[in-house]
């Protein structure tokens, strides 16, 4: 009877989950090899790349590392020892129901009182795109081929970033009544806000696909690489939200500051202008912008119908996981003081 409401033991045991993970890893890696094709073999000058030649060696090496880590996790869980990875897995298993409920709530609450409801997720990028298309095709005589799709990719990615960080920013402060009354792991609030924005992000992909069909973009198998860019963007937004939400607890004017910064960020990202108008000597500065890499990656896949060079993958991963690591660090350092300041 006692504790019957405790999360039921996960149906998947840890060793089984590890096997599934490893299998998935190898399947994905192999699939990636065939989808990417020549992009991994030759650089844009046609010279052969070492990466392509040793691809499976690299994959196997990482697979081995992953397998070793899995073995360590299984060992830790058997010995009852604590480990960071194990804690994270446990937290996820215990709190995924709460996460699901919070994501649903944020998503429902957003459109609860509007007539068109969920349709707004779809209409919003479409209308923004139409307005911007009219403005920019008249103001700038842009020579970008397929400007509609080029623009729409930028808009969809940037509006996700802007929505997710703005919602994430308020996540701790607006759940103050909860945080001071019940124990819940606090990172769950920024994460749930970003994930509920991610649902919107997925819906706003529909107008993008429609634009691709209308403008007759050639669909190729490389479209399967899109999730990589999307996941990297979501990871980056989680990292940003962790930083912003904890800063917001201590300094309430961050929200006004963030409005200005995100506007600046929008103009610093090539959304409606071509990369070529950026001054060459400032390029290294623009390349520090994570969104630049995610958007460039996605545009390359859609407009060129091929995989970008291997370096683009690496840059996207760095641009996603470095901010996440900083976010996790900042959040962990400050979260015990949240209750005292909200």
């Amino acid at each position, binding site marked *: *009877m*006692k*504790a*019957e409401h405790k999360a039921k033991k996960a149906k998947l045991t840890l060793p089984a989950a590890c096997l599934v993970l490893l299998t998935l890893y190898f399947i994905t890696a192999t699939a990636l090899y065939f989808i990417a094709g020549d992009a991994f073999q030759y650089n844009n000058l046609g010279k052969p790349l070492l990466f392509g030649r040793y691809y499976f060696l690299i994959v196997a090496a990482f697979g081995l590392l992953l397998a070793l880590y899995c073995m360590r996790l299984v060992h830790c869980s058997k010995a009852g020892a604590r480990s960071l990875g194990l804690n994270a897995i446990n937290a996820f298993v215990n709190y995924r*129901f709460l996460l699901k*409920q919070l994501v649903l709530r944020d998503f429902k609450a957003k459109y609860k009182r509007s007539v068109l409801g969920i349709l707004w997720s779809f209409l919003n990028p479409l209308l923004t795109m139409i307005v911007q298309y009219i403005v920019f095709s008249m103001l700038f005589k842009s020579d970008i081929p397929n400007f509609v799709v080029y623009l729409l990719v930028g808009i969809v990615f940037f509006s996700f970033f802007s929505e997710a960080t703005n919602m994430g920013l308020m996540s701790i402060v607006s759940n103050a009544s*909860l945080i001071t009354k019940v124990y819940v792991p606090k990172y769950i609030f920024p994460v749930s806000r970003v994930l509920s924005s991610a649902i919107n992000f997925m819906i706003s992909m529909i107008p993008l696909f429609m634009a691709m069909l209308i403008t007759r973009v050639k669909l190729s198998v490389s479209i399967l690489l899109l999730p990589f860019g999307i996941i990297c963007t979501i990871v980056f937004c989680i990292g940003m939200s962790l930083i912003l939400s904890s800063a917001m607890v201590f*300094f309430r*004017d961050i929200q006004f500051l963030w409005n200005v910064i995100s506007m600046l960020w929008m103009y610093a990202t090539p959304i409606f202008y071509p990369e070529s108008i950026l001054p060459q000597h400032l390029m290294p500065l623009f390349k520090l912008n994570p969104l630049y890499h995610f958007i460039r990656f996605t545009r390359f896949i859609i407009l060129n119908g091929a995989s970008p060079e291997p370096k683009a993958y690496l840059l996207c991963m760095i641009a996603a996981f470095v901010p996440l690591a900083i976010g996790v660090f900042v959040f962990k350092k400050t979260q015990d003081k949240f*209750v005292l300041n909200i």
Partner: protein
Amino acid sequence: MIKVENISMKFLIMHDRIRSLKEYTVALLKRRLKYEEFWALRNVSFEVRRGEVMGIIGRNGAGKSTLLKIISGILKPTEGKVKTGGNIVPMLELGSGFDLDLTGRENIFLNGAILGYSEDFLKSKYDEIVEFAELEKFIDVPIRNYSSGMLTRLAFSIATVVNPEILIVDEILAVGDEAFQAKSKARMMELMGGGTTVLFVSHNIEQIRELCNRVIWLDEGRIKMIGDKNEVCDAYKLR
């Protein structure tokens, strides 16, 4: 089982509360960042055995709520450690986390998830919760339209549907109308009597005498007295 070892809790009180980056920079430049220390709890240690009902009494500001928050994991103590065995259900305030725009049904799942219940458990207990709250007719209405009595009834039903190993109660024995008060009191008695470890804060000394085994008297953040309920309650009344 709850084991509290040498807990101290320090709050920093700022005289003019700085809440923005601008003010912070100005204060830092003027070197006027002054804090005042306030110890809400000092070296509190005690142990509650499995199945024991421990009462906590003391005047306002004695540190009772701070202690409950530390034990439920909401606050982290400045010094000391808390060990708890088993799942804790804190009933510090009912219905925290209700979303007014969602329906009663949606809120049962949201609030249940916040309290740490699993999805299967909530599904199996859903009818019981609705029945206990007497809200069958209104369950698909957004709770924005509920009366305050209906809200507390729903919150109470969700919070008490479990049989937790550790229950932390801050004065919420009676909610709703007379009939529901009787019902909720009976439910609380059932929870407290069923081998659950209970920490119970109240200003009602009679209730403490009726329900508890042992009592802690907190005064200005320190334990003034701990022991048998009658001894402590008598001493508290004489003070």
